[in-house]
């Protein structure tokens, strides 16, 4: 009896400890204004003594929604139009039903922040003037215009598929392109029309003309924070704090904040801090830690190397035995080779999304994905190395009386070592390159500056990720040629 009570007490103690230790986790989508909103919430809650954590540019809408439902994150900034017309589109909700619909998922929504961050279509001002285009309907006069829409917009039910029918658009050149890259396309003249967010600073920077939605296709995209209802018990002050930002951020304010990030090269958190101290005249000015480029590089290197080391080590440990089995049992072997081959063809982004419900966000799902991609080259090369051993050598090993295990260890694996090492090397290089995608689900690494660099169209920042990744691949090559010298005997060189 006593034991049971003690156990229950212990459980509750542990439970409270865990809950108390868990900070409020905020995540944001991969575009600047969403990240600034996340930083505003982060600093605002932090200011009131709530422990928080912000994972900027964690992923796209679908990704954050899944992570929120899975309890991997607690809060993210979203837009009413996106919820109604995309995330929950099947339920065909009216705007006033949104609250109760979210409640059925165990979620809540803050008061509107004051901006309608709508989708709009935009053209370069001089091109629009030349063609005399002011509204979306005007585009129909020029069926040859080239459209470059963000990949999300291409698929969203409030995006291109319905926009096209609303306006009966005849255009045939319509391509999906990353939102941040679309600006580069517009600037270089390879596309004429793109989708914009109303708050994009680039509207000013690239001198874009927003086209009027004259048929009223787009709904309202009121910015709000979506959060888990259980936050009300875990951190009771959060809902009121988020609501206190009601109507504080207009489209104009947001655009100027974005401008400071994209054009002024200030960090999102600096801009958010400046906004909060200006708007709310905070008594304790927010102190932001200065992060130097070298600190960041060190951090990204650490994250990247850990991702690669763990996933590659696990892949080596699993793949070599798999390759041996594949070589020894041909029927099972073709199944194994088939499966690892199919795994390799799964698009990395899709694989990462599948991982979230199972493993959450951050390092572990990225490592599992990298592990899966690293299997094929090692399994294949182990298999090929063993199959390729000349028959006389294999027969000699049998004929002198070696047991199957001794034959494998003393003869077959050493003879296949060169091929196996080549497989490991290929895997390592692929792994180092693919690990940059880890940044898409918050695993950090060299992908982080690359993603941010693409978003801010900052080539320097992109190189801060791309160059170290290339160098790391070279280092790995060097390490492997040393290892090869140890493993591959003089007789085979």
């Amino acid at each position, binding site marked *: 009896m006593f034991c049971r009570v003690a156990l229950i007490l212990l459980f509750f103690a542990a439970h409270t400890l865990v809950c108390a230790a868990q900070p409020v986790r905020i995540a944001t989508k991969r575009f600047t204004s969403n990240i600034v909103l996340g930083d505003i919430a982060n600093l605002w809650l932090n200011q009131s003594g709530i422990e928080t954590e912000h994972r900027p540019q964690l992923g796209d809408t679908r990704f954050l929604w899944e992570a929120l439902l899975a309890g991997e994150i607690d809060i993210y900034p979203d837009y009413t139009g996106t919820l109604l017309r995309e995330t929950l589109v099947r339920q065909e909700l009216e705007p006033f039903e949104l609250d109760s619909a979210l409640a059925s998922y165990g979620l809540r929504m803050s008061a509107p922040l004051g901006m309608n961050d709508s989708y709009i279509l935009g053209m370069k001002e001089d091109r629009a003037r030349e063609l005399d285009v002011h509204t979306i309907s005007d585009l129909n006069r020029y069926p040859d215009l080239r459209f470059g829409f963000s990949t999300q917009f291409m698929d969203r039910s409030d995006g291109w598929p319905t926009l096209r029918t609303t306006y009966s658009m005849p255009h045939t050149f319509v391509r999906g392109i990353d939102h941040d890259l679309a600006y580069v396309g517009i600037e270089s003249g390879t596309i004429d029309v793109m989708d914009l967010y109303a708050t994009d600073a680039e509207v000013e920077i690239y001198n874009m003309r927003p086209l009027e939605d004259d048929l009223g296709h787009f709904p309202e995209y009121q910015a709000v924070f979506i959060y888990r209802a259980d936050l009300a018990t875990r951190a009771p002050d959060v809902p009121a704090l988020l609501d206190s930002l009601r109507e504080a951020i207009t489209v104009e304010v947001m655009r100027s904040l974005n401008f400071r990030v994209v054009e002024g090269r200030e960090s999102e958190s600096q801009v958010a801090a400046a906004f909060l101290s200006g708007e709310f005249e905070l008594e304790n000015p927010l102190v932001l830690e200065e992060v130097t480029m070298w600190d960041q590089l060190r951090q990204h290197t650490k994250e990247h190397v850990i991702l690669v080391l763990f996933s590659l080590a696990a892949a080596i440990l699993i793949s070599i035995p798999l390759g041996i089995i594949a070589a020894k049992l041909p029927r099972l072997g073709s199944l194994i080779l088939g499966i690892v081959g199919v795994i390799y063809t799964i698009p990395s982004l899709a694989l990462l999304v599948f991982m979230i419900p199972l493993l959450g966000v951050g390092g572990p799902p990225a490592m599992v994905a990298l592990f899966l991609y690293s299997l094929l080259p090692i399994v294949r090369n182990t298999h090929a190395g063993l199959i390729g051993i000349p028959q*006389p*050598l294999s*027969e*000699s*090993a*049998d*004929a*002198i*009386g*070696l*047991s199957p295990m*001794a034959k494998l260890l*003393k*003869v077959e694996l*050493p*003879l296949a*070592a060169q091929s196996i090492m080549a497989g490991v090397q290929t895997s390592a290089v692929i792994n180092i390159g693919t690990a940059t995608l880890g940044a898409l689900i918050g695993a950090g690494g060299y992908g982080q500056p690359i993603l941010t660099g693409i978003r801010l169209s900052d080539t320097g920042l992109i190189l801060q990720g791309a160059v170290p990744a290339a160098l790391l691949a070279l280092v790995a090559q060097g390490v492997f040629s040393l290892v090869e010298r140890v493993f591959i*005997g*003089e*007789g*085979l060189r």
Partner: protein
Amino acid sequence: MLELRGVSKVYGRALALHPTDLSIARGKTTALIGPSGCGKSTLLRIAVGLVIPTTGTVEFDGEQLGRENIRSIRLRTGYVIQKGGLFPHLTARVNVTLMARHLRWSTKRISERVDELTELVHLPTACLQRYPRQLSGGECQRVSIMRALFLDPDLLLMDEPLGALDPMIRFDLQEELRSICQKLEKTVILVTHDMAEASFFGDSIVLMFSGRIAQHGTMQDLVNRPANDFVKRFMRAQRGLHEWV
């Protein structure tokens, strides 16, 4: 010593070896000879258990060859193949001693045996530390013979052991190999496609043709009392034979 009873081998739909009986006498050297594809290598590999016969049985020293005794019988069998079949990643010495070390022989016993065999096959001692690719064809073959003899087997099987060598080296090694065989008094089966070599080595000769034994006898038998037309033609085709008869 070795009794093959009704052994045959089918590969896919091709009959590589017709049901065949063959008895190998202890302490004698038997040469298997015949044109390529006649089944002589298949027969030898059945004898060493590398190929499992489709029908028939192999009896080694009164024991029927099977899954459970195959390894212990292999330890009593030496096997030499064309070009030696040496493991390229191991030095000559390790190639030779691999099995003895696997059987946990003492270091002393191993090095004594290495010395003994190095002398027997006339291998320069320096060669032992080299890798196969650093050895000449003749040296490789000597190392290979050392490896086959290391555990002092009762039966020595050789599949074209001198087939890949230059004529001069081949001539020298033939002499040495014969003297080794005679000195050791082992049962030897040798596959060759050269009648001169067969008659030089073999106490008896097994002439094979398209998966069957055409005749089994001494050189004199084959020359003077050919069992059929094929034997007659085969013997006629071997030039310069009179030197050996």
